[in-house]
């Protein structure tokens, strides 16, 4: 049971962290609960569908279907996170101002909310499909299924509890800093996802350039450990990044920063100058 709990928790962790950050990033935006729920719900349904067709997916594209699928949905998530951050750079100030007036909800929130619902959806889809496959395998084999299914269920609850912890932890940040903190978190999240996506492409036989490993820090923090997984999601940590991964990581951060700078709207500056 404990084994199943740990495996499921490890899979749920990444999606849980992303949901927590997205919830904190959309604090005060009207209708976010509905959109995030839609994202999670669609992700769970999608995970079951992906798990059901896992055999077909893995055998597609000469056995590299799963890698191409993962790379594609990570790319979608990166684009959505960029869109969100650009939108927030433009409207974050208004939202923060309106949040101070009790009872005022921000109705323009719909745009980044659909983007973030997609991010949540694909995160749940990717991790969830592995959980479904794992639990299904155990149920199918029939050996001590009940206790392991219970472990899996507890693992999902532990992951959900972790989401809450992330969310309330981020809420402890003073309100005037929360938008810049969540924007940074989302930028790092996106950079890490982009670096993962190119590695999936590399495993599928694409993007086979700059393949040398830059460093190996597996002796300090291994990718397989819980902390390693956390840091992987949070800042894109990987114990042996390739030159290509590092390039894409820095490039994504740079593109994100540039986009946010371009999107920023400063009406008071015109008055000052």
């Amino acid at each position, binding site marked *: 049971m404990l*084994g199943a709990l740990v*495996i499921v928790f490890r899979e749920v962790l990444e999606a849980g962290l992303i949901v927590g950050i997205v919830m904190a990033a959309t604090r005060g935006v009207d209708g976010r609960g509905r959109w995030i729920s839609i994202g999670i719900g669609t992700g769970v349904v999608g995970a079951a569908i992906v798990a059901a067709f*896992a*055999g077909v*997916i*893995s*055998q597609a594209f*000469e*056995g*590299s*279907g*799963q*890698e191409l699928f993962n790379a594609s949905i990570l790319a979608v998530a990166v684009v959505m996170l960029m869109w969100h951050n650009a939108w927030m750079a433009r409207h974050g100030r208004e939202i923060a101002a309106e949040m101070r007036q009790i009872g005022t909800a921000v109705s323009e929130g719909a745009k980044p909310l659909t983007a973030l619902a997609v991010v949540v959806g694909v995160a749940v889809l990717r991790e969830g*499909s*592995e959980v479904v*496959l*794992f639990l*299904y*395998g*155990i149920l*199918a*084999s029939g050996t001590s299924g009940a206790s392991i299914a219970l472990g899996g269920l507890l693992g999902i609850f532990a992951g959900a509890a972790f989401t809450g912890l992330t969310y309330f932890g981020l809420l402890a940040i003073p309100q005037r800093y929360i938008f810049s903190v969540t924007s940074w978190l989302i930028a790092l999240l996106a950079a890490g996802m982009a670096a993962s996506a190119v*590695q999936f*492409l*590399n*495993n*599928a*036989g*694409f*993007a*086979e*350039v700059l*393949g*040398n*490993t830059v460093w190996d820090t*597996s002796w300090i923090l*291994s*990718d*397989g450990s819980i902390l*390693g997984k956390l840091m992987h999601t949070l800042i894109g940590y*990987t*114990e*042996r990044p*390739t030159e290509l991964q590092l390039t894409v990581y820095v490039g994504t951060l740079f593109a994100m920063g540039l986009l946010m700078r371009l999107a920023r709207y400063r009406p008071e500056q015109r008055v000052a100058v």
Partner: protein
Amino acid sequence: MRRMIALIAPFAIAALVALSPATAQAQDFKLTIKDHKFSPEEIKVPANTRVIITIVNEDASAEEFDSSALKVEKVVAGKSSGTVRIGPLKPGRYPFIGEFHEATAKGVVIAE
């Protein structure tokens, strides 16, 4: 507009060349999963070159081929197979596991 295209075109072509599969010289290896165990449990591959590993899962349940050393995380559904490309590897030992059955599913890629 034309200048824009002239500026972008070389990058687009370079990207296409870089992204297109270039696996003609890569060597193929096969790994079978049966009763939640890998066979062979040791694969010797050439160092400093790209290598293709085809994982055949003969079990009814899914397995996740997982190796942070090889930079691979790949779910292979039950009674299914999948292919993954790794390397170039420096000479050394690169352990891998089946994450769903970690107790029995273990192996190592030896690059030399």
